């Protein structure tokens, strides 16, 4: 019997190792696996490379990993926003490495990793500072930049509904980076609002098929033990 449902966030992230690369779904304030991130923070693996669109705001979510100095490097498109105090502090100290990637290139590098594509030529960033040092090519008169696939050891993602096979359905714009990240990591763990019986999710509406998902954990009442 296939049953990918785990009963705790703590156990679902307990084998994340020091030095791992960790994708974290979410955009702005939407679609973040906050309880998985909190479990990862408490687990305490260090020297992480975090791949996510943003670098966290306030003290919660990705910012809590930065605050505990568990992150060596962040790969993202928009690290700086109102309230990104921990990222800015570590950046100023030289305590965190930043790889800045245009948002669409970030998404496509993740998609490529999940689809077995080694790299791709994109017009995004051609002729700009973010293409410096990268191979370029002119195709049919237009300039392109070679970007390589971006895989990860672990993906922590957020969906709304799941079943025991790991099929996932999302909520509105909370989908964002979660589906491509689900495909691109060795271990994909999904935080979901509820788990339904196998067969109850409409197969026409499943966004992430379960083959991409290793573990599913249903949310409990949110408790922040650090607070």
């Amino acid at each position, binding site marked *: 019997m296939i049953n990918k449902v785990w009963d705790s966030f703590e156990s679902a992230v307990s084998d994340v190792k020091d030095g791992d690369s960790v994708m974290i779904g979410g*955009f*702005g*304030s*939407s*679609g973040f696996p906050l309880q998985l991130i909190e479990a990862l923070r408490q687990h305490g693996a260090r020297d992480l490379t975090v791949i996510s*669109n943003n670098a966290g705001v306030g003290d919660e979510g990705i910012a809590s990993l930065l605050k505990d100095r568990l992150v060596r490097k962040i790969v993202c*498109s*928009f*690290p*700086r*926003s109102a309230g990104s105090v921990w*990222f*800015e502090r570590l*950046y*100023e100290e030289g305590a965190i490495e*930043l790889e*800045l*990637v*245009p*948002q*669409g*290139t*970030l*998404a*496509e590098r*993740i*998609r490529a990793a999940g689809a077995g594509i080694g790299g791709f030529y*994109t*017009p*995004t*960033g*051609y*002729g*700009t*500072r*973010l293409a410096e040092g990268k191979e370029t090519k002119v195709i049919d008169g237009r300039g392109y930049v070679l970007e390589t696939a971006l895989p990860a050891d672990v993906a922590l993602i957020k969906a709304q509904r799941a079943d025991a096979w790991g099929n996932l359905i*999302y*909520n*509105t*714009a*909370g*989908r*964002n*980076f*979660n*589906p*491509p990240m689900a495909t691109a990591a060795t271990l994909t763990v999904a935080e979901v609002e509820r788990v339904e019986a196998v067969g109850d999710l409409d197969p026409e509406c499943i*966004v992430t098929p379960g083959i991409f998902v290793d573990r599913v954990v249903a949310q409990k009442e949110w408790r922040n033990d650090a607070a």
Partner: protein
Amino acid sequence: MMRLKPAEIAERVAQDIPDGAYVNLGIGMPTMVANYVSDDRQVIYQSENGILGVGPAPAPGEEDPDLINAGKQFVTLLPGGAYFDNAESFAMMRGGHLDLAVLGAFQVSEKGDLANWATNNDTYPPAVGGAMDLAVGAKQVFVIMSHTTKSGEPKILESCNYPLTGAAVVKRIYTDLAVLDVTDDGLRVRQLHGDNTFDEVQALTGATLLPAQN
């Protein structure tokens, strides 16, 4: 000189958005454009985080915490709208499916080079988001901005001295003083606001302007 207020520049941009267009509005002043598109036109707004058919802000208490736009404001979905992931959202842009992007800018060059993601202050961490993808991906890029900096320095230049977002991507520039087209011949005045004269606008522009045709 006649200087339009930001809302008035947004209103001017809105006049040029065609019925049926798929449009991405950047964060800040560009977002205001949607307020002025007349009701006889149906425009479908894309938000880069994965929404087509972005509707107005929800009523207080009706917010869906996941349903935000690129500026992290709560929005709604219009009937007929759709959600999709970020890889598909940017495929939509780079694939040339969006008719128009309206973006803000620090600087624009006479060749249509756009600089809107970084200044020359290296101590400040940079952020780029979707700006570079939009700049190269949308069929047309309009820029909406003030004609000069707060201290009166030109923002329209022969070449940008801030890092580029995209090279030769801007089609039209809407400022508080004028509307300019980026053409193969150079920057051509499309419209002078109020009774602004060509010479007055030229004096506040760091590139040579061509007079309006017709």
